[in-house]
Every structure is written in C-alpha cells, then in structure tokens.
C-alpha cells in the first residue's frame, strides 16, 4: 500500500508556503460562501420548523401509516450513519496501512463522520413520536424501578451510536491538535485564546508527538471495530425482526459494505467540491480521486455481489412471505426504484470507473453522486416494501412522505453542507502537519 508515489505532491510545496496557503484559505468569506451559508441556514430552519410542527400537531402529520410504521426517517437514519463510515473507516484503514496519499484526505473524511453522526443520530429523535421521553431509553436509576429494554436493537443502536460519535469526535480531534496550536500562533485576541485552549497545551515536543502518534494508532484500531459494529447494529434493527426479507443473516455485513461504499462516495463528492470551491487543486490531486475511485469500484463490486446473493437466496428459497416482498420490490412501483438503484450503485460506477479511459475527476464525482442516490434508494427499498407487505395480505398498505418528511430530509442535507461550510472556516480542512510530514518524507 505504501507504494503509492508521493510525486503527486507538487515539488514546490514547501513547509512555509503550504501553511500560509492553507491558513490563508480559512480567512475571509466570499459572497457565494455567505450565500451558501444563508441558503443552507434557511433550509435547516425550515426543517426545524417542520419538526416542531410534527411534535405539536402529532406524528400523524408525517406520511407514515399502518402498516408502514417506519418511513423516510429511518431511511435517512441508515443513510447518514452509513455515510459516517467515510471518515473514520477510510482514514483509519489508510492510516493503519500507512497509505501516504491519504494525508490531504483524512481531515475531510473525519469531519464527514462527525457531522453525519450528528445528523444521523438526530433521526431517532425525530422518528419517535414522544421525543420528550427519549431519556427513557437511557439506563439510569429511578424511583419507578424501570429500565430500558436491553434486548431491544434500538437500545443497542443508542449505545453504538453514542460510542461511535464520541470515538469519532476524539479521532477527528486528535490530529487537529497540532494544527490548532499552529492556528493559535497565527491568530489574535479571543480566537487565539480559543485555539490555544483547544490545542490542549500542544508545544510540539517529541513526547507529545509520540503520544499523539500512539493514541491515533490506538484510536484507529478502536474506531475500526466500532464502525463495523455500529453498522452491524443498524442492520440488526432490521435483521432481528421477524419481517420477511428483513430477517436475514447477510444484513450486517451487507450494511457495513453499503456504509463504506456510500461513505467513499460522499468523501469523493466532498473532496471534489472542496477542490473546486476552495481551489485546493494543489493538494487534492487527481491521484487521490483515482485511488478513491478504485476503492469505490471495489466496494461497488462487493455491494453488487451482496445484493445478488441476497436476492438469489430469497428468490430460490421461495418462502411465501418473502417471495411476495421480492415480487413487490422488483416489479411495479418499487421496481422502477429498484432498477434505478442497480444502475446507480453498480452499472454507472462499473462503467465509469471500470474503464480506465473514462476515469477522470468529473466522472468519478458523477459516479459518487450516483452511488449516494443509489444507496439512499437501497435503504428505502429495504424499509418500505417489506413493511408495506406484512405476512397477512389483508393488512397490506402503502406509504408516501408528507411535506414534513421531505422538509426534514432536505434540511439534513442542508445541515451537512452548512456544518461543512462552517468547519472549513474554523479549521484547516487539510491537516497541515500531516501534509507537511508527507512533504518532508519526500
């Protein structure tokens, strides 16, 4: 893995100039930037309003109904938790395998994780109809002598996501420390004090460097395990049930694969956007995209394999309750979505990334966008068709989201962009010291 040539870096990228360049990009705000923040902020505010409306007027203001008791919120939940695997998992894998080319990429990836978890973790709260009693899911001693149900996958979810969130915040934070110290050196007044405080007294001594390296390595290992477990647990929400096609042994690895898959796609999109908007062509070079696209293609193949296996076994098994879901999902209304998903997740990446002549930053970005659409559809096609076709045919039903779910869904995408826009102005999006390291290594 470490055979990746570092020649990708420009020869003239000296330490001082890189630092000045990256720090410089954090200052000031252009018109389009401010407009972006404003638009995203408005969409987020609208989504918050929609949420408030839902709480006040009753959960019935969503489109969820019998028998489809779960809708867009759970789809979004799985989707965002899936994307969150971008950061930690990718950066941890690359860090552990010592892939040098990772260095300009890791910070962007880790930030995705934290933001996605924040957003994804909000969905269970939005999804329950009495969110003011959310704390009943926490195990705390109380006079009523009541405990949460430790057997419930939703409780596992809560545990897993809180663990993952805290883990990935630390994992994002650790490599930020040297940069924060650097930032503190370059800023004045209150800003300086804040950065100073956040840098936890970083002086850059050898001992500190060693401690940082060690803890990052440790966190990389820990976070890898957590990440895999988190998405397995998310999969267990479905596979622990008795519902046809949900009760499935393949779901845990399938979800983990899907998560990494969508995570890489999200990372590529974010990188492409950063490169374009912040003018980071110097740092995020084609080689990064190409390398990530190879990973993406690999995941696409694995995803295709899992999907094939899942459908083959269901079809071949021919269990009455499962085959109905199978039929409803592959034909008619859901069928259109299904084949769109296959095109997005498999055909497009396979063609655009598999044929080396077609492989370029724009095509890689297009494939990534397709994968995100496809993976969102995948989750939708897992949640809704099964629920709309329960074992007793008399109870079959349908689902369509209301403006509330659409607003909140749009709001979460806006929130993601907003958080990122704010992040790139507060912290260097490329880890200066790591990049430095890379350059020095050369």
């Amino acid at each position, binding site marked *: 893995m470490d055979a990746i040539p570092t020649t990708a870096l420009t020869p003239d990228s000296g330490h001082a100039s890189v630092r000045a360049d990256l720090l410089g990009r954090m200052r000031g705000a252009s018109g389009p930037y401010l407009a972006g923040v404003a638009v995203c902020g408005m969409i987020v505010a609208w989504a918050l309003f929609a949420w408030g409306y839902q709480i006040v007027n009753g959960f019935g203001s969503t489109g969820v109904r019998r028998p489809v008791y779960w809708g867009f919120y759970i789809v979004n939940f799985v989707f965002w938790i899936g994307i969150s695997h971008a950061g930690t998992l990718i950066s941890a894998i690359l860090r552990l395998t010592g892939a040098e080319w990772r260095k300009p990429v890791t910070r962007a990836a880790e930030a995705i994780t934290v933001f996605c978890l924040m957003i994804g973790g909000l969905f269970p709260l939005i999804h329950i109809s009495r969110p003011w009693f959310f704390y009943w899911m926490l195990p*705390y*001693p109380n006079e009523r*002598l009541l*405990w949460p149900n*430790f057997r419930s996958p939703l409780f596992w979810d809560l545990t897993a996501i809180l663990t993952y969130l805290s883990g990935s915040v630390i994992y994002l934070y650790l490599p930020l420390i040297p940069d924060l110290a650097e930032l503190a050196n370059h800023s004045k007044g209150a800003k300086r004090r804040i950065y100073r405080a956040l840098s936890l007294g970083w002086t850059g001594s050898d001992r500190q460097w060693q401690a940082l390296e060690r803890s990052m390595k440790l966190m990389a290992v820990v976070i890898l395990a957590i990440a895999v477990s988190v998405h397995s647990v998310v999969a267990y929400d479905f596979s622990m049930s008795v519902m046809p096609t949900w009760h499935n042994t393949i779901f845990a690895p399938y979800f983990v694969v899907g998560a990494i898959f969508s995570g890489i796609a999200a990372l590529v999109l974010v990188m492409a956007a950063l490169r374009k908007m912040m003018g980071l062509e110097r740092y995020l070079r084609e080689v990064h995209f190409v390398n990530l696209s190879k990973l993406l293609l690999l995941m696409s193949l694995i995803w295709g394999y899992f999907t094939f296996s899942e459908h083959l076994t269901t079809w071949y098994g021919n269990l009455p309750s499962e085959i109905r879901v199978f039929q409803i999902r592959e034909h008619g209304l859901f069928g259109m979505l299904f084949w769109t998903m296959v095109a997005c997740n498999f055909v497009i990446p396979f063609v655009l990334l598999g044929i080396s002549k077609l492989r370029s930053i724009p095509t890689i970005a297009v494939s990534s966008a397709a994968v995100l659409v496809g993976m969102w559809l995948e989750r939708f096609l897992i949640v809704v068709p099964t629920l709309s076709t329960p074992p007793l045919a008399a109870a079959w039903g349908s689902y369509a989201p209301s403006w509330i779910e659409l607003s909140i869904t749009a709001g979460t995408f806006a929130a993601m962009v907003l958080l990122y826009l704010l992040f790139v102005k507060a912290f260097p999006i490329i880890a200066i010291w790591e990049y430095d390291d890379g350059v020095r290594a050369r």
Partner: protein
Amino acid sequence: MKGRPAARAVRLEPASAARLSCTSLWGEFLVSLAMLSALLLLVVQTASASEQPIGFSHTAHIEKASMQCTDCHEGATSRDSAGLPSIRKCMLCHQFIATDLPEVVRLSEYWERKHEVPWERIYGFAKTAAVQFRHAPHARAEIACSQCHGDVASMTVAVKAVTHTMGSCIQCHRDNSATDDCLACHF
C-alpha cells in the same frame, strides 16, 4: 411473586434496580439531581397550594361530629372511586346545623345557586399517566385511608400529605407482596 412462572425471570425485574442504583458516581449524581428536583417540585407545589372554595374542616366533622370517612366519601371501600359528596349531602345537615358559620353561609350560597361546590382535587393521577386506580381492593386489603391520604382527621382543609408517585405505589405494593405487574394499574 410466588405465582410467577420462572420464564418471566428473563423479563426485566425491577429487583435489579435496587442493586444497581447508587453504586456508581453516576448514580449518585442522578440521585442528587432527582432529590434536588423533588425539592424544587415541593417548593413549587407548596407555593401553588390549592385554596378550597370553602374552608371545609375535616377535623370538625370527624372529631367533633364523629363522622366516618365513608359517610361522605361513599365509594371509598366499595367502589372504584371514593367520590366527593354532592352539596345535597352537605345540606342534609347544614340546613339545620351551624347555619351561621361563615363557611356554611358560603355553602348555602352555592346551594341557592344550585351549584356544586367546586372542590379542588388534591389527589389523583394525570390523564396521561393512564392509571386506573380502584379504591375497593385497597380497602379490602385493609390499607388504612391515612396510608395514602395522611391523617386527614387532624386536618382542617385537606392538604396533600402524601405524594403519590409510581415509586410510592410500587414500594407499597412490594412491601405488601401485592402485584407489581404494570397492567395492575395501567390499562
């Protein structure tokens, strides 16, 4: 508990709660938090202590007139709810007795308007708690009125002497080996 099949042990038995509580710092923190809020609640409740439309004295009726609780709260031992007496019942006596007392004068004002006295409830469960309390079985189990209502006999205007929380209900049920099935009260 004797009658419970062993299979139920898998379900969360609140017994484990006692063991777990207060064993950690986290627990202690929460307990102190709970105590603090209980204190706050008490202050708030005392501050907004109810004012009854008529200063009905329980002592006067029980001690002096030697009445029984069930003379007015007729259902207390036999029905679901104890019930508040209708003004009709008050007037059976107060048409003749103590008619010049200011509180009785106020009572007869209500009577003349053909209105019941708008007594303020001091015990009861929030509707959202979905509690179905039945007086009769508690009376059959010989739970004294005072256990849940305090020593009303010594009160003038009844005040909330006992705070009814799920914790207090459960505690009493356990002390008396009564059921701790949620369905016993919530349905």
